[in-house]
Each structure stands twice: as structure tokens, then as C-alpha cells.
């Protein structure tokens, strides 16, 4: 059984201890607490050097130290503190860095509220458990042979065909029936390459429909999107070593993943407001009567300050844009204001929950909207934002890359 050490403060008193353990058990892992005595707590705390007032945070530091010093030998570490606790957030991030810099043990962090339920933790625990059991696969940095990656998302299905470390074909379609959509996307990817389904050496699947597709196509790799997207992003952006953040502002939900040496260690996902999604930009382009592909370049020419939005809301915000247009405002300014609004709200809702590490790799369909990428960089104080080639196919690329480490099905 994979042993996950719990290094946390406040989980019992937020009533989520059982949820954490339930989530771990589902993926064949168990939660353990590093055992330490009083003298060791003080010694470890002094050595670490962070003056925390809360004694439970001192205990967290000491537990992390016992892992780094090898007194406790877990396979993975789950670090969690209460959402909105400043002291907790500081210790959480420092402890995370400390473990990552001094061991090869995978870490996942989380800031929780009393509403946190096991299913929110599933994807993190799955990522943690698979990082342990599939370390050699996740370590893959080069694609070999001919592999197909399929990413079945809630709105779109993507397919990527790769050969000898190069993308040779891509496919994209909106998700209807999972299998049919995957076949359509794959057919598009095969087009013009001269290859057929039978020729591929391996298939990797990811996304919501990964199990259904995996079974149907006999995939060698069926993997959650956290590890796959992180891997795909750092591979395409050439950031396989060191730290990075992957941002995907989706059509319906947003994902932010922080990555250390290609392995994800934190993740937030939001999807409660259309105003913080690609949908807002879709609506704007329709109102402006421009194609979504033209919205980005248009926004880059505009100035968001000239078209003030009083609301992030997809109803009231769009209304403000229409008012600006009616008052003679330029289309470019309106497009810029829309991009700015989405990026600001993504920041307020999600990016603040996570420690953003440079570079930020922006992926997904919306990463093709240049105005949005510019707005994200500006919102984050001008940090470096990389949009790699094939950024809209990130999951499929990740799946194709990772499955190439699992052997050739023809051999």
C-alpha cells in the first residue's frame, strides 16, 4: 500500500480528516502521521527557522523535518492547511519547498475549507498515488515511436499523433458521444500522415472520458488530467526541470497546476462563474461580430481602461460593453476590456489560492487569444507567460508522450 504522510494543520477541526482518508483509500493509499517526540519537535522547529505562533504549525514543520531526515519514510506527502490562514499558507509553501528540495518524495498541497469533500481530493490523491507507482513513466522527457494521445474533455475532444518526439497530426472536435468524438478527432489527426489506427505503438487517454475511451481502444495508459496536462505543458514549453505553473482557462472551467520538475504538486479548479471563463470571450466576440480567432489581436490593439466594466458578470459585464459600444467606444477597447475582466476574475477566484511560480505556461483553447495572454501577464505583475505550440492540445500531447514509455504494442 502506498503510504501518504499527512503534514497538516486544522483538518480535524474543519471536519475533513475522514474525507482525506477516504480519498487516499480509494486510490490504494493510506494516510500516516510521522511520529515524533516533544524534544524533536523543538529541535526540528529551531533548525527550520520559521517562527510560527501556532503550535500545530510547529508540529507540521517537525513532521516535514522527520521526513527529510529519513526518520519517517512515506511514499508521498500531502500538505494541507486552512484556506485563508496566512500563517498556514506560509508554512505550507515553505514546508513544500523544503521537502521537494531535499527529497524525491512527491508532494501535493491543498488549502481546504469545511466544505472540502473526498471527491475534490480524489484527483489529487490519484495524482499522488500514480506519481509514486508510475514514477518511471512520469519521468519521461522524450516521445518515441508512433503514439496517439486522446483527451476527452467535457466540451471538446482532442487527438494528437506523435512520432519520434514530433507532433505529426492533430484533431479537435466538440464532445458528443465519447467514442464517436474520439474517433472523429483521431481520424483528423491521422489525415495526411499515411498512418492508421493499426499502426500506432501505443494509445494514451486522459480527461473525463478516459476510462470509456481506454476500454474501447485498449489504451496502454489511462491517466488523470492533472499529471498528463502538467507533463504536456512542460514538455511543449521546454520547462521540464524546475518550477512552473500551468494555467488553462477553459470554456467552462479553469485549471491551475503548479509543477516541480514536471510533476504536479498543487492544483485548483474553478467553474462557478461564466464570467471567469472562455465563455465570456465567446459572448464578447459575438457581440462585437468578430470571429473568436480575431478577438485576441483586436484586444492587443485596444486599451481596457477606455471601456470600464463595472461587473465581472456575464450578464451585467457584457451589458457594460454594449453600453460602451453604443457610446462610440472602439471595438478594440471593448475586446481588451473583456480579456482584462476574465483575467482579473481568474486571478481573484483562483490564482490567489495557489503559489504562482514562473514561468506561467498558458494552455487550452483560450491561450490562442493573444489579448487574454497579455491580460494574464499584466494582472500578475508582468510575469513571463509562455504559450507553447499545440497549447490547445496539451492533454493529448501529454498522453501521447507518456504512453511512449510503456512499450510497443506490436512487440
Amino acid at each position: 500500500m502506498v503510504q501518504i504522510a499527512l503534514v497538516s494543520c486544522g483538518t480535524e477541526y474543519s471536519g475533513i480528516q475522514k474525507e482525506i482518508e477516504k480519498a487516499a483509500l480509494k486510490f490504494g493509499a493510506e494516510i500516516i502521521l510521522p511520529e515524533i517526540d516533544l524534544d524533536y519537535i523543538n529541535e526540528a522547529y529551531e533548525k527550520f527557522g520559521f517562527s510560527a505562533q501556532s503550535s500545530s504549525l510547529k508540529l507540521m514543520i517537525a513532521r516535514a523535518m522527520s521526513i527529510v531526515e529519513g526518520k519517517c519514510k512515506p511514499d508521498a506527502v500531502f500538505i494541507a492547511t486552512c484556506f485563508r490562514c496566512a500563517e498556514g499558507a506560509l508554512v505550507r509553501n515553505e514546508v513544500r519547498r523544503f521537502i521537494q528540495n531535499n527529497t524525491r518524495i512527491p508532494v501535493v498541497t491543498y488549502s481546504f475549507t469545511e466544505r472540502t469533500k473526498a471527491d475534490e481530493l480524489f484527483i489529487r490523491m490519484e495524482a499522488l498515488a500514480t506519481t509514486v507507482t508510475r514514477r518511471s513513466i512520469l519521468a519521461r522527457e522524450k516521445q518515441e515511436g508512433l503514439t496517439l494521445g486522446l483527451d476527452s474533455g467535457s466540451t471538446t475532444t482532442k487527438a494528437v499523433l506523435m512520432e519520434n518526439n514530433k507532433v505529426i497530426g492533430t484533431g479537435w472536435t466538440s464532445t458528443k458521444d465519447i467514442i464517436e468524438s474520439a474517433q472523429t478527432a483521431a481520424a483528423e489527426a491521422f489525415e495526411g500522415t499515411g498512418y492508421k489506427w493499426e499502426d500506432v505503438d501505443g494509445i494514451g487517454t486522459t480527461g473525463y472520458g478516459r476510462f470509456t475511451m481506454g476500454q474501447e481502444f485498449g489504451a496502454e495508459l489511462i491517466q488523470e488530467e492533472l499529471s498528463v496536462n502538467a507533463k504536456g505543458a512542460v514538455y511543449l514549453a521546454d520547462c521540464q526541470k524546475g518550477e512552473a505553473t500551468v494555467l488553462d482557462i477553459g470554456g467552462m472551467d479553469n485549471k491551475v497546476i503548479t509543477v516541480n520538475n514536471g510533476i504536479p504538486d498543487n492544483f485548483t479548479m474553478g467553474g462557478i462563474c461564466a464570467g471567469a471563463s472562455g465563455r465570456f470571450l465567446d459572448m464578447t466576440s459575438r457581440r462585437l461580430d468578430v470571429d473568436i480567432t480575431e478577438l485576441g489581436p483586436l484586444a492587443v490593439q485596444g486599451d481596457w481602461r477606455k471601456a470600464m466594466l463595472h461587473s465581472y458578470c456575464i450578464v451585467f459585464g457584457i451589458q457594460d460593453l454594449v453600453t460602451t459600444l453604443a457610446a462610440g467606444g472602439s471595438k478594440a477597447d471593448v475586446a481588451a476590456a473583456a480579456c482584462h475582466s476574465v483575467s482579473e476574475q481568474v486571478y481573484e477566484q483562483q490564482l490567489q489560492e495557489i503559489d504562482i511560480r514562473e514561468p506561467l505556461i498558458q494552455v487550452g483553447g483560450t491561450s490562442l487569444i493573444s489579448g487574454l495572454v497579455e491580460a494574464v501577464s499584466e494582472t500578475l505583475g508582468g510575469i513571463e507567460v509562455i504559450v507553447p505550440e499545440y497549447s490547445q492540445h496539451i492533454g493529448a500531447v501529454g498522453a501521447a508522450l507518456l504512453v511512449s514509455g510503456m512499450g510497443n504494442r506490436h512487440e
Partner: protein
Amino acid sequence: MPANLCITPDLGKEDMDPEVSTRMIILSSKANVSESEVVNFLHMLNLPLTIKWTCYGAMISGKDKYVKQAIKELRKLDPYGIFTKERGFAPGDPRRCRGHRYGPREGFHQMEKEFRILDYVGEALRNPREVEIEKKEPVSVDYFKEALESSFKEESNNSSDENKSEDDKE
């Protein structure tokens, strides 16, 4: 059994009874009685209690009124060496027992620290004293000024002494 922290315990009727309470009996290191004497004494009381011998003394569990009665009698044995504290979890409850989970339970470290001064507490109880609490006030500005000036004076005297000695050398 997996070392899962959150076991849903299979507790008996008594364990679930809110009227049943648990007490830890902690002996200071200078106590006149031993752990075994305490346990024997508790057994001799013949009260319907569960009695457990532990490293720090004993643990008793039972209906609140019997627990209180037992504590009252027990204290007479050594009023300055026997201390007691309530415990939320029943003895051996798997949710807190070290045998079932890794890592000590939360309250353990604090008890460990408080135990270190129990001898002094017992001594203070044995010899009660009138104490007056003196609140420390900041010194007056005049006093502070005086102190500064005199320390400056001293320093300048010292340094002129040093100069003198250097002059002597030359």
C-alpha cells in the same frame, strides 16, 4: 489492519454513554505513592469502575459520580502528589490509541510539559504563601536620563583611561 487514522470504532454500550467519564491520574515524580499503590487503592474502593495502570499513573472510567467519588478518596492518599485530569476519549479508544495510529495524540505533548513542574506545584500546595503580585512599571524618564548620563560618563572615563595608558606606553 491498515494504519488508517480515522477508524470508526466498534465501541461498547459503556463507551457510548455520555454519563461515563474518563480520568487520568498523574503522579508527580516526588509522589509518596506508586502507580501500583494507586491502582490497588482504586480496586479496593470497590466501585464499578474500569481501572487501567499506565506509565504516568492510572486511568479510570465509569459513571461520573463513581469517578468523582474515587478521585475524592484517592486524593487523600497523597494530596500533593496526585493530580487528575479529564480525558475525552475512553481508555483504548482506537481513535486516539497510539497502538492504532502513528504519532502521539494531540494532548500528549502538553501533559508531558506540565508533568515537568508537578513537583513544584505539589510543593507550593504543601506550603501556601502570601504572595503579592508586583506589576512592573516602566522607569520614569528622569531615572532613564540619569542612568544614561551616568553610563556615558563611565564610558568616557574609561576611554580617557585607555588613552592615558596608551600615552604612557609612548
